[in-house]
């Protein structure tokens, strides 16, 4: 490879570093993404122009096909479906890396018989981890798209099956090191696909974003390893960057949920899902009509809205915005309390509310929101549950115990918009639903809010 091309790759690598740096701060995030895209363009342009490439027409055709698939998917997807799209994109990247290593292996196998240990190890690693990442991402997609249940799927003797497949994959990988057998490598690929599926199945729906982040880091490492196989520094740098930053990011996400990563991957709240949720269903609650809620809100001085998973599902972000505007016009002070893990992925609520043009100033981070809540007249909880569940403070046995929550119970009155008394992701009862100062507004978040909007207008 010419020095010029290598220099181009170095520039691309610098772009990627600047991209991650930019993406880490709100002010520069967008420029960061552009820097990354610029790096990608440079990298591809350099690659195409180094010459010596056969099948250039086919290659350009394949790039065009990829773009025709990727761009519309990215531009048309609903904001609420973002996570599954990221999962797909991540999976295909892992798949591509595994294929690259496989092709390189086939090419070298047909040419020489000397085995370079380092290359062989990198090949095996790429095939294994790339396949896990691909298959795992597809399962997360299926879960998030609700093509399958979002609850943790625990096969009978699941641990044993997963363990056996894991051992098989590692065994095949080690066996593949000294020999050069295409059959072995393809078997490894298939077993690794199975491992990827088994890895993600026991993870609950709301934990899936963490797993996507983890698989993202996996794919990064896979790309780095495929770069090692090809002797390409750019792939090594870019893949390693993503591998390292993805690992940190996964840990930060898990930390924001107050739970260890191993618990998310392997524990999945299995022990405590059924018990209390079933028990307490027939205690009395106070439910209100949209008109009741409209009066409560319309004559309050300060209302804090706490949005959650259910708002995202119901696509109610524009309706809540409309309600907030109406209330503000009536002189009510309205702000939003954003829990870091509310919604489907970290930061998801910010994205959703930004889409609905909610002013940035009225989005309060957790600590700020908790200060405001103590002087609020009404806390309006829309499709959220776990992030306001006092059990996190009070029940040492609860799976969310210790997670910082939004203390809506410190407001003078609490309104819950949800469809039923069913618990949220963590599967535990929320005592606050039965509290005398709580009013429930049953129904889909978007529909309920529309009715409240109409009722406030009629006040």
């Amino acid at each position, binding site marked *: 490879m010419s020095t010029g091309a290598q220099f181009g790759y170095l520039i691309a690598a610098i772009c990627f570093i600047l991209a991650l740096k930019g993406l880490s701060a709100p002010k520069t995030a967008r420029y960061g993404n552009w820097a990354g895209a610029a790096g990608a363009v440079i990298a591809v342009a350099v690659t195409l122009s180094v010459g010596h490439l056969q099948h250039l027409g086919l290659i350009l055709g394949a790039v065009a096909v990829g773009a025709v698939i990727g761009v519309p998917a990215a531009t048309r997807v609903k904001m609420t479906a973002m996570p599954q799209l990221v999962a797909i994109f991540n999976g295909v990247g892992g798949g591509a890396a595994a294929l690259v290593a496989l092709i390189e292996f086939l090419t070298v196998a047909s040419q020489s018989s000397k085995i370079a240990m380092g290359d062989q190890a990198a090949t095996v690693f790429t095939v294994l981890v790339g396949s896990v990442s691909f298959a795992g991402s597809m399962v997360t997609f299926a879960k998030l798209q609700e093509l399958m249940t979002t609850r943790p799927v625990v096969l009978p003797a699941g641990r044993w099956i997963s363990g056996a497949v894991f051992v098989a994959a590692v065994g095949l990988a080690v066996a593949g090191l000294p020999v050069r057998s295409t059959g072995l490598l393809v078997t490894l690929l298939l077993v690794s696909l199975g491992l990827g599926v088994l890895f993600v199945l026991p993870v609950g729906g709301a934990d899936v974003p963490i797993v996507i982040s983890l698989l993202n880091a996996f794919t990064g490492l896979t790309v780095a390893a495929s770069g090692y196989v090809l002797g390409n520094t750019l792939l090594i*740098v870019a893949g390693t960057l993503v591998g390292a930053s993805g690992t940190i990011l996964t840990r930060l996400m898990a930390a924001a949920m107050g739970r260890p990563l191993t618990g998310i991957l392997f524990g999945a709240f299995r022990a405590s899902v059924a018990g209390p949720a079933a028990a307490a269903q027939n205690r009395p609650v106070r439910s209100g009509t949209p008109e009741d809620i409209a009066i409560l809100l319309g004559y309050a001085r300060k209302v804090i809205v706490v949005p959650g998973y259910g708002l995202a599902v119901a696509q109610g972000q524009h309706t809540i915005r409309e309600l907030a505007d109406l209330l503000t016009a009536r002189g009510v002070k309205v702000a939003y309390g954003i829990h870091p893990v509310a919604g489907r992925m970290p930061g998801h609520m910010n994205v959703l509310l930004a889409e609905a043009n909610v002013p940035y100033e009225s989005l309060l981070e957790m600590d700020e929101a908790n200060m405001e809540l103590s002087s609020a007249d009404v806390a309006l909880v829309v499709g959220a549950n776990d992030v306001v569940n006092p059990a996190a403070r009070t029940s040492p046995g609860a799976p969310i115990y210790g997670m910082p929550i939004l203390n809506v119970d410190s407001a003078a009155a609490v309104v819950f918009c949800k469809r039923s008394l069913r618990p949220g992701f963590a599967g535990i009862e929320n005592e606050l639903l039965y509290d005398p100062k709580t009013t429930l507004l049953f129904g889909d978040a978007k529909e309920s809010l529309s009715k409240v909007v109409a009722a406030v207008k009629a006040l």
Partner: protein
Amino acid sequence: MANQIGGMGLLTIFVLAVFVGFEVVSKVSSTLHTPLMSGANAIHGVVLVGAILITGVSSGPAQITLGLIAIVLGTVNMVGGFVVTDRMLRMFSARRGEERR
């Protein structure tokens, strides 16, 4: 393909890149977790470069077919990733001027 810069050089590059990756994102606020994940995801789409390079020197039909599939997948990852990240961030930055800090 030969490693032009030697295994130990590549390992050094790997180690340094690990440190850069760790340090650069270690102070990100939770608001940006999703776009950061998505942006990092787009970056590893650079595997497209590897797919192009390997396809460009392949000869057997099986290898070329696999190579083209890898190119399609890599392109979807890269192009789709940057576009979707930009879409997310466009919403954040719509009101950049009013931002608090």
